[in-house]
């Protein structure tokens, strides 16, 4: 094999794939931009506007004692007060997540948002006992049906609440409390619905405390427990405990990174091979290089593409973790393993792609042969939950030794909270290396025969025939 020719092929392969605007934008700039806007999106999400609906809420209060509390609770100034409080909490959270990065920006936008709050106006009309629920419903139905703007916005019926007689005090001790029933105008703002329902429930609950002679403030104090950050005690000392999200997120992200990097390189390899074949440029190439040199060069070139993707994504990930002050989750050994398992997974996947690309006449024909490969690539997703729940179960252990999905499963196990013993990781690397050799051998055979075969697209059986031929 002529190394300089192989590297020449690789260089062209890399340049024609990675040095294009489409690739740089699609694969590199987009993720970087997305990572950069995550904090912005978080801030924007908290900027959600409070409900600004105005209108009438009818309350048919059979208990005859909740209405005043509801009126108080849903009064414009008290609703506004609660929203401001929520914004301030959110601002605190953002700041605790991103000390330094974006904290000031978050604070600013928070202040801006709170000053802009438009409070909803609910006009509570207590309906007397003599008012029939059907009449109220009829009024709402008519308003909805007529679909015209009301002269007086306040007359717009938002909801009808019917509160049971026994909503706040039990009639017999052996039965439970009564409840309430809400009827809403269609397509009402979610926040408005939430505010109304929340207000009614809160009010009923307050009345129940009173009736049971319980002190409202005391209950609130009893219910509140300040959450303190959990810590993990390690050999080196204390550290922030991996929270629930991190235990799932890190293995998942590691697996997705591997999948994405190896699949992107592999997909490009398929495309360029099919292109060279359907362009008929392949015979020109074959007059200069051998099929094996051509395939090796192409695989190395796309490996470069995958590696650059992986490097960029890893860098983005590390920056993001540091920005969210989760920097202590970064494990250099883990990053090394991601690269090792990437290479193993990529070589197996790329071999299949090269073989398929050489075997077919155009991308459309590639689809049918791609199906089994795609199924294979979905497996890590399917096995994610069972593996991550029990990273060292027999099931997980066995899966992590079966190429070509082994690299994905192993990286999940390694990055889980309960990492497998080192010998297993090393064994998996060894098993995958054998897998790589087998896959490359298979690909080289198919590649050689397939490249100059035009006409009927092959099926799996013909592929195996070619292997015997080559």
């Amino acid at each position, binding site marked *: 094999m002529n190394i300089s020719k192989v590297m*020449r092929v690789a260089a062209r392969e890399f340049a024609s794939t990675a040095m294009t605007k489409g690739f740089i934008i699609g694969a590199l700039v987009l993720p970087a931009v997305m990572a950069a806007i995550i904090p912005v999106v978080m801030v924007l999400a908290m900027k959600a506007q409070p409900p600004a609906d105005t209108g009438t809420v009818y309350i048919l209060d059979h208990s005859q004692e909740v209405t005043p509390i509801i009126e108080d609770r849903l009064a414009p100034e008290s609703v506004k007060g609660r929203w401001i409080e929520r914004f301030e909490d959110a601002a605190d959270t953002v700041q605790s997540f991103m000390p330094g990065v974006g904290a000031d920006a978050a604070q600013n936008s928070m202040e801006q948002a709170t000053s802009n709050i438009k409070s909803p106006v609910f006009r509570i009309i207590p309906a007397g006992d003599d008012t029939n629920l059907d009449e109220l419903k009829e009024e709402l139905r008519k308003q909805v049906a007529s679909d015209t703007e009301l002269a007086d916005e306040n007359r717009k019926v938002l909801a009808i609440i019917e509160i049971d007689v026994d909503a706040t005090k039990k009639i017999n001790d052996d039965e439970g409390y009564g409840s309430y029933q809400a009827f809403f105008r269609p397509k009402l703002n979610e926040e408005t619905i939430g505010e109304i329902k929340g207000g009614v429930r809160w009010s009923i609950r307050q009345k129940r405390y009173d009736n049971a002679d319980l002190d409202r403030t005391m209950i609130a104090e009893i219910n509140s427990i300040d959450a303190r950050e959990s810590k993990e005690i390690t050999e080196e000392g204390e550290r922030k405990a991996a929270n629930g999200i991190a235990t799932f997120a890190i293995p998942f992200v590691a697996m997705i990174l591997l999948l994405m990097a190896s699949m992107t390189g592999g997909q490009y390899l398929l495309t360029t091979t099919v292109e060279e074949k359907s*362009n*008929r*440029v392949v015979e*020109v*190439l074959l007059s*200069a*290089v051998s099929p094996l040199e051509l395939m090796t060069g192409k695989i190395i070139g796309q490996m470069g593409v995958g590696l650059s993707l992986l490097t960029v994504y890893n860098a983005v990930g590390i920056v993001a973790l540091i920005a969210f002050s989760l920097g202590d989750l970064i494990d250099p050994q883990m990053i090394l393993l991601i690269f090792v398992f990437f290479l193993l997974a990529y070589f197996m996947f790329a071999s299949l792609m090269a073989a398929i690309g050489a075997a077919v006449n155009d991308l459309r024909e590639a689809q049918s042969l791609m199906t089994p490969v795609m199924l294979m690539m979905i497996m890590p997703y399917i096995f994610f939950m069972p593996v991550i729940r029990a990273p060292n179960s027999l099931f997980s252990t066995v899966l992590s030794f079966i190429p070509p999905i082994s690299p994905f499963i192993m990286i999940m196990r390694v990055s889980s909270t309960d990492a497998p013993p080192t010998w297993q990781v090393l064994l998996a690397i060894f098993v995958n290396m054998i897998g790589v050799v087998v896959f490359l051998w298979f690909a080289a055979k198919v590649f050689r025969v397939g490249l100059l075969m035009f006409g009927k697209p092959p099926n799996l059986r013909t592929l195996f025939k070619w292997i015997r031929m080559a």
Partner: protein
Amino acid sequence: MSNTDTLAVSMNGVRKTFGSKVAVEGIDLAIPEGSIYGFIGPNGAGKTTTIRMIMSILFPDHGELSVLGKKSAIESKDRIGYLPEERGIYKKMKVGAFLKHIGRLKGLDSRGLDLVVKGWLERVELEGVYKKKCEELSKGMQQKVQFIASVLHDPDLIILDEPFSGLDPVNMRLLRKLIDEEHTKGKTVIFSTHVMYQAEQLCDHIVMIHEGKKVLDDTLDDIRTRFDPRSLHIDPVGGLGMSDEIAKVAGVARVSAVENALEVILEKGIEPQDAMKTLLAAYPMNRIEIKKPTLEDVFIEIVTDGVRGLDAEQLRANLLAGSKLEEEGES
């Protein structure tokens, strides 16, 4: 025959099958260095398969092969220039970059490659396309770029598979000139074509392939002498309607009308000179001449002799149309 050292290509009993189909069978070849060889035969005859085996893109099932003194072309790839029949190009690549890529794959040093590429583009009258994308070129221009790709590295052996197809007459002449120049420089040139007159214009040696078998391997002059003219073209003063009378002349086998003349096919053993004398004695002529056999005639004679029930005219029509002969051949 010359010894192996001075042979550019030699083949010995080479056979290649694809599944149940025999593409090439029992091909022997001895192509001396510095010669210009034409592979002719209709489409599907096995020319491309033979060429691909010389190029070591395909490998023979049986038989021996040597290229530039090596067991296979793989060992001397950089000394061979190859223009495949199915020629491709990287559409998105710039012409200059494409040629430089191929040049470097062919083992050229990247230093000075720029100038070599530009020089060649000038020679084929394609100045100014260096920075254009390949897909922006017309088909004819692309073909010239592909030709450059095959000779860029100054190879000793140049193999061109159907180099003229798709070219207009002006570019055809240009390409012929370039091929001739390479030949004059002492390079061995092998090219294939199904259009026989192109071979007649360029080659000094012809290899005819039909249905995977070599049916002729000789110099053009020898072929012309060997395939004795068996027909005359005449234009009797009495007009072209005289075919019946002429057919009765001794030694004439058959008369048929061709464009502006009558074609007189002679019986076996009759010397054309004698026949001309007899005919001139019998009728006054505006014109009488021995018809020079074209390669096409030679090909048809060989093929019709070998295969019974084959209609020569039908075959000729097929040949002109460039359509495949396989179906007729098998029946």
